[in-house]
């Protein structure tokens, strides 16, 4: 008897996108159940159905043996179902316990909040669950990992029996992941049921009891984690073999392309300074920038592309001084894939054609005529078709809005646009964040092609496995400075993690 039963659940987004197509799966009480699939496979939609945020168009959902008709997440919560979303919404200026009781505060006389009782109750919730969390600290002072625990504590405090976590490890540093897993296991052993979404199959293998694989909105299989493997799951997800090992072949690096010396800027949303940073990227070389979010990696990219003001002793690409140049003029020397695909990489409501025309419309001959006044839509349309076909973008029409594509396909459009301009330097900020496995493989292959063609590549990524797979060198940023600069052969997860979290090189454990 399952605790949750999806029976033929179907969800259609008009005109005819089947986000879920006749999905039937049972979740057993007291198990950790992972949902995996490429982007757009339907895992988030399925979990949102369980959480009451999305109403299925047909099919039924049973929770604790009762047929449900949730109209909102609040209904689901009343049934003991709760979800930790990727975006964590907490009040920074309140303490942990205040955040946990927010909305269900126990009240005493005159309907005043009974603070002592509230605090004691939260204390008990946290202790019972074995979360390592101090209820009295301000949430604003917490790491992302600890904030996630506050979200879990909130659900537990509301007596949630079925916890859903949407890509819980995406925001964590490598050091924090085992701790989260231990805590989730403790919750399971205490009788709760955990559903989680992940893109990391190795994590799934470590944590989950059973794994459901979705593809194109359909349930492909539900398997015992003990009886499967990463490559078997990957095969089910994309129905073809995915290469996880590095495809780097030996390649001689050439001359210096990006030459940065003494670069300084303000780190966005922080009182800290970026730099001084010295960094060189050679032709035929992929250099990765690792670091905990907010340590200046993004600002380093912004300073190079010119979107924030900066000072530098030297900022050259292939001998050309960038410091006096505008964003547009810098783009003559570099390609840029920004971190935020939906707001910076493209315009979701504009067509593929309009999205691929950006920057080309000013710099590439043929995209405009009459001295740059008239826009040549036809030229942009043929580039869009070329990118769609060359990058295997699943889209019926190049006039469709970018937002109608899955995340991975959107990113391939952005990458295609940037790579179609032949620039000596390619700068990529989180190139595969929120992208499905199949697209990640394609993007990595493109990056290695750039290396083979003697271009210089600078990649910022929160995914260390990715950096280890594609980079020749990895640098680590910590509080605005480069604290480690090593060849990938010398890099280990521990050594990188220590540099990211503590700003020092832990050579011994390397």
């Amino acid at each position, binding site marked *: 008897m399952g605790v949750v039963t999806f029976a033929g659940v*179907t*969800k*259609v*987004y*008009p*005109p*005819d996108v*089947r986000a879920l*197509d*006749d999905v039937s799966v049972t979740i057993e009480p007291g198990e950790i159940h992972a949902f995996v699939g490429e982007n757009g496979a339907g895992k988030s939609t399925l979990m949102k159905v369980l959480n009451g945020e999305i109403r*299925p*168009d*047909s*099919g039924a959902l049973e929770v604790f043996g009762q047929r449900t008709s949730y109209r909102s997440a609040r209904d689901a919560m009343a049934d003991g179902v709760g979800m930790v979303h990727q975006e964590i919404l907490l009040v920074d200026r309140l303490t942990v316990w205040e955040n946990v009781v927010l909305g269900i505060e126990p009240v005493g006389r005159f309907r005043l909040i009974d603070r002592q009782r509230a605090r004691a109750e939260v204390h008990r919730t946290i202790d019972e669950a074995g979360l390592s969390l101090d209820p009295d600290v301000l949430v604003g002072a917490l790491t992302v990992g600890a904030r996630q625990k506050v979200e879990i504590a909130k659900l537990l405090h509301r007596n949630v029996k079925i916890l859903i976590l949407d890509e819980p490890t995406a925001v964590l540093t490598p050091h924090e992941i085992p701790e989260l897993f231990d805590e989730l296991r403790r919750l399971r052993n205490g009788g709760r049921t955990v559903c989680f979404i992940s893109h990391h199959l190795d994590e799934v293998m470590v944590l989950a009891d059973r794994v459901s694989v979705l593809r194109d909105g359909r349930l492909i299989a539900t398997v015992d984690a003990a009886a499967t493997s990463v490559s078997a799951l990957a095969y089910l997800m994309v129905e073809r073999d995915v290469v996880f090992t590095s495809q780097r072949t030996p390649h001689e690096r050439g001359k210096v392309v990006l030459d940065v010396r003494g670069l300084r800027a303000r780190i966005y949303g922080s009182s800290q300074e970026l730099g001084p940073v010295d960094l060189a990227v050679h032709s035929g070389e992929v250099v990765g920038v690792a670091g905990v979010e907010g340590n200046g990696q993004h600002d380093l990219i912004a300073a190079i*592309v010119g*979107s924030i003001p900066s000072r530098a002793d030297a900022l050259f690409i292939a001998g050309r001084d960038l410091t006096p140049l*505008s*964003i*547009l003029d810098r*783009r003559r020397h570099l390609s*840029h894939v*920004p971190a*935020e695909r939906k*707001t*910076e*990489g*493209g*315009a*979701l*409501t*504009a067509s593929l054609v*309009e999205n691929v*025309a*950006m*920057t080309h*419309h*000013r*710099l590439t001959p043929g995209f*405009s005529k009459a001295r*740059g*006044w*008239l*826009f040549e*839509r036809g030229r942009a349309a043929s580039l869009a078709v070329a990118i769609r076909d060359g990058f295997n973008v699943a889209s019926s029409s190049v006039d469709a809005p970018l937002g109608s594509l899955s995340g991975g396909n959107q990113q391939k459009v952005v990458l295609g646009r940037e790579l179609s301009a032949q620039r000596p330097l390619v700068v990529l900020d989180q190139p595969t964040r929120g992208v499905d496995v199949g697209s990640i493989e394609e993007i990595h292959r493109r990056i290695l092609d750039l290396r083979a063609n003697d271009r210089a590549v600078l990649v910022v990524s929160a995914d260390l496995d990715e950096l280890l797979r594609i980079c020749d060198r990895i640098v680590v940023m910590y509080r605005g400075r480069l604290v480690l600069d090593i060849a990938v052969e010398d890099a280990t997860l521990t050594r990188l993690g220590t540099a990211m979290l503590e700003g020092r090189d832990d050579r011994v454990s390397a």
Partner: protein
Amino acid sequence: MTVDRSWRSALIGVGVSLAIGALLAAALGYPVADMFAALVRSAFLRPGKLEATLANAVPLLLTGLSAAIAFAAGPVNLGQPGQVLIGALFAVVVGLYVHVPSIVQVPLVLAAGGVGGALWAGIAALMKRRFGMDEFIVTLMLNEIGRLFADWCISSPLQDPSAGSVTTKAIASTAFVSRWGSVSFGLVVAMLCALVFRRFVIGYEWKMMGRAPMFARLGGVDNDKNTTAVLLFTGALAGFAGAILLANGPHRFVKGLGGNYGWDGVMIAVVAVNALLGCVLYALLFSALQTGAIGMELAADVPSEYVQILQAIVVLVTVAVRGVLTSRVRDWQARRRARQPSH
């Protein structure tokens, strides 16, 4: 969103609005059938009325385009009322003091209107660039300043001393614009706007800036420059409306010349969701209602203010219907698709 469905929701919106308007009139005891018959007669059927409706639609179209283009590109220009008046003020000066053949003077008067509107919007652009002030607030406040400045001009330096009311003298007859001249001007400007967005690099940049400003900026688009350009361009469109109101209308800058054309334009942009063809059609609808109102008042004794209420109903209902219809149609389609087997 398909063209087909947006047409449907527009038609349903207008139909429902007229039905609500009819119920309202019936509740107040007016003869509904006579009333609408009179409205249609005096908006279209009576001799010369079709031309009047078309000509009156032109200033509405121009202010509508002004608001729609600004909203579509990002900057919130809510200064149409002020830009209309300053445009008319520039136009009246050229009409009063420049004496050249009509073929030269009409373009000069219209151009002067455009320059006036652009300058007035340009103040907001300057404030934004220099001091980072929000154009939304500045354009809005300039409306009041523009109205008072125009009132002062026509009651003091430009006033016709022989007239008993606050007005300027009539502009030279060589500056008059006929109804059909006005209609052709409106069509030319609308086509120009379409051309800017479809064929010009700058139109592409404006559109991208409106859809995703950070995307445009990182792609090398100069958003500051384009914001200034959009404010000047849309200010000029509203200024054209002022010049047309003057040169096709009373030929004098009388107090209250701008009427409600500025705000009507903003409403048109809202119901048309910033679409160009939508601006044309809603400008025609609003114009027909306004032209027909006078006949309706005469024939059925319905106060012409009733049309303002009807206009407001059209705006609210159309926007609401669009929202409801879109989500309902989606739900219905989704359920239907869900029942069909896939493949």
